[in-house]
């Protein structure tokens, strides 16, 4: 597990990335094994649902593991 500073930095990174993902229209579907709520980004905790949504829309998946 990351230490506290690593975890904080990763969180900051995730927020920045989420922002970038919105900016890069159309955004990829983001699947995260622990779940997260960031406005404007489609965060899904179920990888199968993420794959189905990505398949429908032609978007890639960004699968995040931490």
């Amino acid at each position, binding site marked *: 597990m990351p230490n506290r500073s690593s975890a904080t930095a*990763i969180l900051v990174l995730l927020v920045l990335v989420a922002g970038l*993902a919105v900016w890069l229209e159309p955004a990829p579907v983001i699947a995260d094994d622990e779940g997260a709520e960031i406005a404007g980004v489609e965060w899904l905790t179920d990888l199968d649902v993420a794959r189905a949504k*990505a*398949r429908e829309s*032609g978007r890639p998946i960004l*699968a*995040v*593991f931490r």
Partner: protein
Amino acid sequence: MKGVDVRTFHFDFDLTFAALLMHPDGTIHHTYAGRDWTDPQSHLSVGAFVDVLRRGRLDHDAYAKSPRPPKRQKPLSVDQMPWMKRRPKQPDCYHCHNVNDARFGDARDRGTFKRRDAWTWPDPVQVGLRLDKTIQTSVVEVVKGSAAAKAGLQPGDRLRTLGGASVLTFGDVQRVLDASAAGAETIPVVFLRDGATKNARLRLAKGWKQPTPLVFSWRSTKWPMAPKPGFGGRPLDAAQKRKLGIDKSHFAFRIGYLVTWGENAYTGRNAAKAGLRKGDVVVSVGGKTDLTSMNHFHAWFRLTQKPGSTVVVKVLRNGKPKTFKLSVLK
């Protein structure tokens, strides 16, 4: 990681963070992940992530025009692995490293574990490439005498493809290396130099996947490996070394524990039998003074010491030098 199919969502499970840009058919376009021994975030940067999202998107669109879905494999998740199921208590949260704990634990239980099984996701430095943190395809250094040097790669070159795969990140390079054979192997590389596309071949000698103890040191997969020293502690800082008259460039640590618990208690008993005590300041093991961290010490011991041999441990006890001979156990 509970319920995650580790065959589809495959990455370096020793990591604490990984992001995969994928096609829904399971094809992994790019891997944004990777670290080295210096820091968990040594190869994480927003700039690199932007690159993956931008350029990876183009790779996704190109792939979608003529997809080649990977062969379907039976899904496998960490919570379904026999080693994990045999644990008396299941974890509340399955971490990425638990995947390797279970994979290698199963192999150990079956008696099929080979040390080389743990040489996963080679660091690009093992083929001679040091890559930039932000522009991760940019070569910042080529190790003298390495496969990359012999292939003619130079600092400033930008990798485009490796083994025929488009690479954007440190993790992409690692994925190609991980999938390559451990024996003598040749990997084609396409790179840009001064705007011109160039081709080369990385010719790797047998055993190239084995990392040095330093390169391997950050991985949690080292812990179950034998031989184990049976003791550990905290490194001394510069002031503590000065006070004890230890050369500031030498690695030294104070023994904080002998392993007296669990299935490895025999290693702590062995260290105690050799004469080592909690509080001793270790100034060299096997004559080695250039270690860089406790992780490095533990990896070095496991990767270099031969069971059945003895290793000389030099310590300071109450400021006085003492020398002990430690038997290296299986």
